[in-house]
């Protein structure tokens, strides 16, 4: 067992440290940091906007670069949060709470240094768990039947809808809408076109990248135009000397960082939860543990490093279900999964056996990427922040141009650009209506798998629904779903009667 793990790590390192591995990892984390700093562009938008560039690389390199973009945004997001109180990504919104007050007190350098360290430690712990847990899950996953996969996928969809915090019904509407969009194209079993309305381009289904870019990229641009105010830069110089924390601060941060990493590791691997929720929970926990809870919100170091460690750990462990089972837990992971499939790789237990170099190379590249972020972030923070000074009037036409050429370059297809336009409208419309977009994307990616496993399970069971309850894994998933839906209903009734009483 131990020999096996060591062997895996060495194999992974040999891929990740190869010149091309390092090169694409570096490009990925730099691009990720830059897009993470720009407000409104989160990991989801960054990965979908930059995907076209990675499309033309070999699968391993493309994945290393995309993963770098993904966790790079988390680093970049916290930089914007701390210095300007503008969360670049949703998961770094918590960093505003105590990071910005620290910056106002002239301690922005210390805050940035400590978040970088916390992010690195959190990320590293997440990767360690990934290395040890992934082989174990894979050995169990070989026993999964279609019914188990069906229930686990459904669990992922329902947990995303019930945990997100907003209206559960609206989130479920979006997941089902996503599933229906995923139906468009040829039927897997009979090869007959479905809901293509005679359009030949739709036979292969709606392009995931075009859909994601429309929903997240174009819609975000439309919503942000005219609303982005130029930011005021503080004139303070960020020097290495005033970045170092005092000894007590350093020592006091160890426990919050470790607790945060623990919370993030667990929540990242579960379906439906991700970095954003992990960072909020970690913040709440630190506040409860603290002997001086009234310092929180005024620049408490624990309130900054705990959540930062937490969301970076979650970023890494989110890969566990995606890579080992092929079931992404969050919308961003759904894009990563889609990207794998576009490259002809089917994630799941067989991936590790058949392509160990890709699997372990990717995982070790996470660690190299985190190390690179640590190295490039600390001395270059001043440069990153300057990106915020680029006016939006220049930024948005450039983003549009880059995205349109990128999406066209994938298939040399003008039709894909039209798909982008259509989903730009859909994305902007749902934004206006207050409907959440991530469940739609998750439904779109998971829908075809859900259907395939459902049909296969029904075929095997001769049309009996009992399999979903009698098989232990599927049964457990069904039970959790039932509890989650029941809880959501109770919460809805309670909050509604409360709301109506106060009026």
């Amino acid at each position, binding site marked *: 067992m131990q020999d096996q793990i060591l062997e895996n790590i060495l194999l992974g390192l040999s891929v990740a440290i190869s010149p091309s591995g390092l090169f694409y990892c570096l490009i990925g984390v730099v691009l990720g940091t830059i897009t993470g700093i720009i407000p409104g562009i989160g990991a989801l938008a960054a990965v979908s906007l930059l995907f076209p560039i990675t499309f*033309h690389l070999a699968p391993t390199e493309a994945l290393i670069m995309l993963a770098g973009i993904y966790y790079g945004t988390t680093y970049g997001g916290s930089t914007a949060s701390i210095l300007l109180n503008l969360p670049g990504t949703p998961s770094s919104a918590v960093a505003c709470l105590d990071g910005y007050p620290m910056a106002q007190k002239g301690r922005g350098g210390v805050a940035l240094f400590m978040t970088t360290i916390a992010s690195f430690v959190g990320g590293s712990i997440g990767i360690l768990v990934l290395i040890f847990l992934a082989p174990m899950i894979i050995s169990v996953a070989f026993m999964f039947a279609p019914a188990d996969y069906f229930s686990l996928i459904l669990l992922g969809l329902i947990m995303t809808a019930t945990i997100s915090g907003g209206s559960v019904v609206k989130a479920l509407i979006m997941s089902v*809408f996503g599933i229906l969009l995923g139906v468009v194209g040829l039927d897997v079993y*009979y090869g007959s076109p479905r*809901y293509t309305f005679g359009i030949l381009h739709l036979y292969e289904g709606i392009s995931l990248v075009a859909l994601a870019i429309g929903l997240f990229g174009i819609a975000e641009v*439309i919503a942000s135009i005219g609303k982005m105010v130029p930011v005021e830069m503080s004139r303070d110089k960020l020097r290495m000397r005033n970045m170092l924390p005092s000894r007590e601060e350093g020592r006091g941060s160890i426990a919050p960082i470790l607790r945060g990493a623990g919370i993030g590791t667990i929540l990242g691997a579960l379906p439906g939860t991700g970095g954003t929720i992990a960072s909020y929970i970690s913040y709440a926990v630190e506040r409860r543990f603290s002997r001086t809870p009234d310092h929180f919100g005024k620049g408490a170091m624990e309130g900054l490093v705990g959540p930062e460690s937490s969301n970076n750990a979650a970023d890494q462990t989110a890969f566990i279900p995606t890579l080992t089972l092929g079931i992404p837990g969050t919308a961003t992971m759904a894009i990563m999964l889609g990207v794998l499939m576009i490259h002809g790789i089917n994630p799941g237990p067989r991936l590790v056996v058949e392509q160990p170099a890709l699997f372990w190379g990717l995982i070790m590249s996470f660690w190299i990427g985190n190390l690179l972020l640590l190295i490039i972030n600390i001395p270059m923070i001043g440069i990153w922040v300057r990106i915020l000074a680029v006016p939006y009037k220049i930024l948005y036409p450039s983003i549009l141009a880059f995205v*349109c050429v990128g999406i066209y370059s994938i298939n040399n297809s003008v039709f894909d650009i039209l798909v982008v336009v259509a989903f730009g409208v859909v994305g902007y419309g749902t934004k206006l209506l207050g409907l959440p977009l991530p469940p739609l994307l998750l439904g779109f990616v998971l829908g075809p798998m859900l259907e395939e496993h459902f*049909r296969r399970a029904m075929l095997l069971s001769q049309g009996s629904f009992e399999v979903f309850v009698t098989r232990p894994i599927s049964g457990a998933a069904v039970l959790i779903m039932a509890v989650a839906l029941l809880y959501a209903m109770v919460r809805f009734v309670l909050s509604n009667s409360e709301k109506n009483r106060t009026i």
Partner: protein
Amino acid sequence: MKKPSANTISAVLAITIGAFVVFYGFSTYRLGAIQRMGPGMVPVIFGAILAILGAILLTTEQFNRVRTELPVVAWRPLIWVLAAVLAFALALPIFGVVPATVLLILISSRADGALSILQALGLAAVMACLIWLVFGLALNLPIPFLTWRL
């Protein structure tokens, strides 16, 4: 008449789309039996679920006294950005990527009107070069940068 709330619009949309998927599926595709499903079965099931969820949202909204108002639509950015991307899609097969990019930037920059025409032209020139550098020189993609096909 009161303006419908955002949730009411969402609910009506969900019911409409769900009902359409169900009827279209019923009339066009074979459903098959549950142990051997035809192409129509799964879409019809989920279409029905979508319509039911829409109905639930519509019903709960009637009891909800806190109405979610529909925000104002930002027509100007919406129309200019969509027009720019459409123009890009139309111009690309005829003139190639570089002219299409210039067109895209000129039109989309009208969305907030913050850049003057001259500035927009400058930005278009810079972006055209950048795109050629990334997609042509670095990635070496077989896409038409400058053509004339009618």
